[in-house]
């Protein structure tokens, strides 16, 4: 009996030792992949910055050939910031565009505020069904002073994807820009995301823009004029995370030709292609990323030459969750979205027919995005267990800590360095210091807390739990009177 227990304990020790080594290798690969993407992003930023003096944005603004754009802003209970967001959109520097706000059955004063501010008038409108939508359109309104420039649609609540599909149906122009109703775009943002379409109108299928965090920034007349780190450490850590994962990660993926995520907060698509693929999917919570993967799927299957492009500047500014509870809900949703997308498009994974997307990008998402929270949480349990049962020695444990967290800090601080070298959006020395501390703290607690929510998101996807609209309590922008 004692021998049996001894043998069992030996197996447990061996198993834990092997698992811990595997986790160690996983973290080395994960952080190295982040560093690799960061280096690719660095090359891309320098290329972009060198082009700025002769990028031709001014020609694009003046040209009668510049394609018109429909900006879609789905809104659900966005009363806190909707007026500032629409004002910011109307102030964008772009020759021809319309804004389509889709009020998806808000229960707050979103519509009333818009109606008052922009003198909305109800108009009859034929609503087509080019892309499927569920929530019935209640009424369509236009701004009295600018009937071709601002349209507000009221519809029965049907979720963000449904709201966007109604917007696609009602939009008039060949390019569709999707923007969140809590976002403020830089004045040149539309020109920059349209430019790839103007340069290559036949092959560019979609363009993603950068989303940065607006908390703490001052907004004047719909423009972010003073970039500041916010007071909350939770938001500061998200700022560093956005720099590393979204700005630099997606730029790196774009450079590799494997961009599969364009944020719903700021992305541009060709209207005809959106109609062809049936708009946004109703059955996934990560509708923005799913759309891009579906576009890849569709265009690769048709053998069409196409490109999905990412532009690093200018940016869309968005409000980030300021409490752990709201952040947790957001990350649960995001990770659930990733899981659902990978499940829906599992037929693309490791299939040469889908090129870099199938052979490289999607497998990466399975291993280093979908599985990451589970490995992170496993490490938190299995390493102390391994030490307790002598499966691993303390030297190994410290090497692990260095690789998992020290290497992570190195990557986050390198992201800050790259930001400072390239765009240097945070001009104050104290903000730089706070960003630096946040880059360290991000790896000590924040990442692990997010892993719990992400694991919950994957579990919900596994269980097919009912989806809900991704509402987030807004505080609104720090608006300063001009």
């Amino acid at each position, binding site marked *: 009996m004692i021998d049996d227990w001894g043998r069992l304990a030996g197996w447990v020790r061996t198993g834990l030792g092997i698992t811990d080594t595997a986790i160690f290798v996983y973290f080395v690969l994960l952080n190295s992949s982040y560093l690799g993407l960061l280096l690719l992003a660095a090359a891309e930023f320098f290329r972009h910055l*060198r082009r700025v003096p*002769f990028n031709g944005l001014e020609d694009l603004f003046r040209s009668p*050939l510049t394609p018109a754009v429909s900006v879609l802003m789905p809104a659900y209970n966005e009363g806190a910031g909707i007026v500032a967001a629409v004002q910011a959109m109307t102030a964008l520097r772009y020759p021809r565009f319309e804004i389509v706000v889709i009020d998806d059955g808000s229960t707050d004063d979103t519509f009333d505020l818009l109606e008052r501010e922009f003198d909305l008038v109800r108009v009859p409108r034929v609503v087509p069904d080019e892309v499927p939508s569920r929530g019935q359109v209640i009424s369509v309104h236009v701004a009295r002073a600018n*009937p071709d420039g601002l349209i507000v649609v009221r519809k029965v609540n049907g979720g963000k994807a449904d709201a966007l599909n109604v917007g696609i149906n009602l939009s008039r122009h060949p390019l569709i820009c999707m923007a969140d109703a809590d976002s403020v775009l830089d004045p040149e943002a539309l020109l920059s995301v349209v430019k790839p379409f103007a340069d290559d109108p036949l092959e560019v299928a979609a363009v993603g823009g950068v989303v940065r965090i607006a908390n703490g920034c001052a907004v004047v007349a719909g423009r972010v004029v003073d970039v500041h780190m916010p007071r909350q450490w939770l938001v500061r850590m998200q700022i560093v995370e956005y720099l590393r994962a979204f700005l630099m990660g997606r730029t790196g993926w774009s450079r590799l030709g494997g961009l599969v995520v364009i944020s719903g907060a700021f992305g541009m698509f060709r209207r005809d292609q959106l109609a062809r693929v049936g708009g946004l999917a109703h059955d996934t919570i990560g509708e923005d990323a799913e759309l891009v993967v579906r576009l890849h799927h569709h265009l690769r299957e048709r053998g069409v030459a196409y490109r999905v492009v990412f532009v690093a500047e200018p940016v869309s500014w968005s409000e980030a969750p300021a409490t752990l509870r709201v952040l947790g809900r957001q990350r649960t949703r995001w990770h659930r979205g990733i899981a659902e997308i990978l499940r829906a498009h599992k037929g693309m994974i490791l299939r040469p027919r889908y090129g870099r997307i199938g052979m490289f990008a999607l497998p990466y998402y399975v291993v280093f995005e979908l599985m990451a929270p589970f490995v992170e949480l496993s490490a938190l349990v299995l390493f102390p267990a391994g030490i307790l049962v002598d499966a691993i020695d303390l030297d190994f444990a410290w090497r692990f*800590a260095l690789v998992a967290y020290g290497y992570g800090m*190195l990557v986050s601080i390198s992201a800050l360095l790259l930001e400072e070298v390239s765009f*240097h959006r945070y001009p104050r020395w104290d903000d*730089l210091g706070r960003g*630096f501390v946040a880059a360290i703290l991000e790896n000590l607690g924040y990442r692990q807390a997010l892993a719990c929510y992400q694991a919950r998101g994957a579990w919900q996807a596994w269980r097919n739990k009912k989806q809900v609209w991704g509402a987030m309590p807004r505080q609104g922008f720090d608006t300063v009177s001009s």
Partner: protein
Amino acid sequence: MIEAVSATVVVLGIVVFTLSVIIVVVRVVRRTLRRRRARLAEAPRLALLEFVAEGGTEGAEELIALPQRQWQAAEPGAIALLGKVRGEAHTALVDVFARRGLIEAERADLTHRSRVRRARAAEALGNLEHRPAVLALCALLRDPHAEVRLVAVRALGRIGDPAAAVPLLDSRATADPTPSQLCAQALAQLGPEAEPALIGALEHADARVRVTALDALGLVGSGALIEPVARVLEEDPSLPVRLAAANTLGRMGGRAAVPPLVVALGVDHPDPLRAAAARALGEAGAAGVAEALAGLLADPAYRVAHEAAHALRKAGPAGLAVLRSSPEPHAEEALAVAGLG
């Protein structure tokens, strides 16, 4: 054990400290350089603005006598100014560049190893409207770097020599083509002598070239060019090219653009083309479109009916009369918007 902990902390500390020092150094150096450049450029910038404001009659000698460091700091502004001023001020500023020996230097830089130097030289020569550089700029349309090609396109447009038309069109048919819209704009700046090349390009094997030529023709806007564009609208095998032809006819406008667009409204054409033709008829602003569009208000294809209604809204009293007499919901929608204007 303690050694391992210490080594870990020390390594981490060194890396973090080094990165933090680099970040601080980067910021300090960048700000110092920016301040220095601004200080150096301040006096020449004012001298340049005064020179241009005076139409180039006074101040040339002071600009030519500026020390090299000061001129270098102000040169990007001077090159940008060249692109903004016209007439005597432009000629006088070009003369300043020539007397400082900068034109020859920029021409030499067109073949420089650095892509940034090549692009800057192309930008400068374009703004200087330096015709003798056209051949060298056409060679840059095949440059391996996109930013250099892009600047070469713009420079050729500014210079406006029709000899650049064919190289510009050919630059759209490569594996890594020049930007379509920019190329069309440059082609449109080459004047009437470039029109035969544009018409010839409508039969180019590459659809990208045909689209660019159509866009350029739309900007030229000459009514005499309608016939070849109408042929593309009717016969081209590529739908995006036919859509571009419809848009071009809308931009050209006038009575002669109407018949081919009306033909494209026929039910035997794809719906996106019919919708584009309806929109183009609204933009053409010619008389006599109301009748052709009236029949589309009840079209089962949403885009076709919608565009027809809004084209009628823009077609003046005759268009509004058609909308008022129609029971179709698209007509009601367009009338409601027209009532707000």
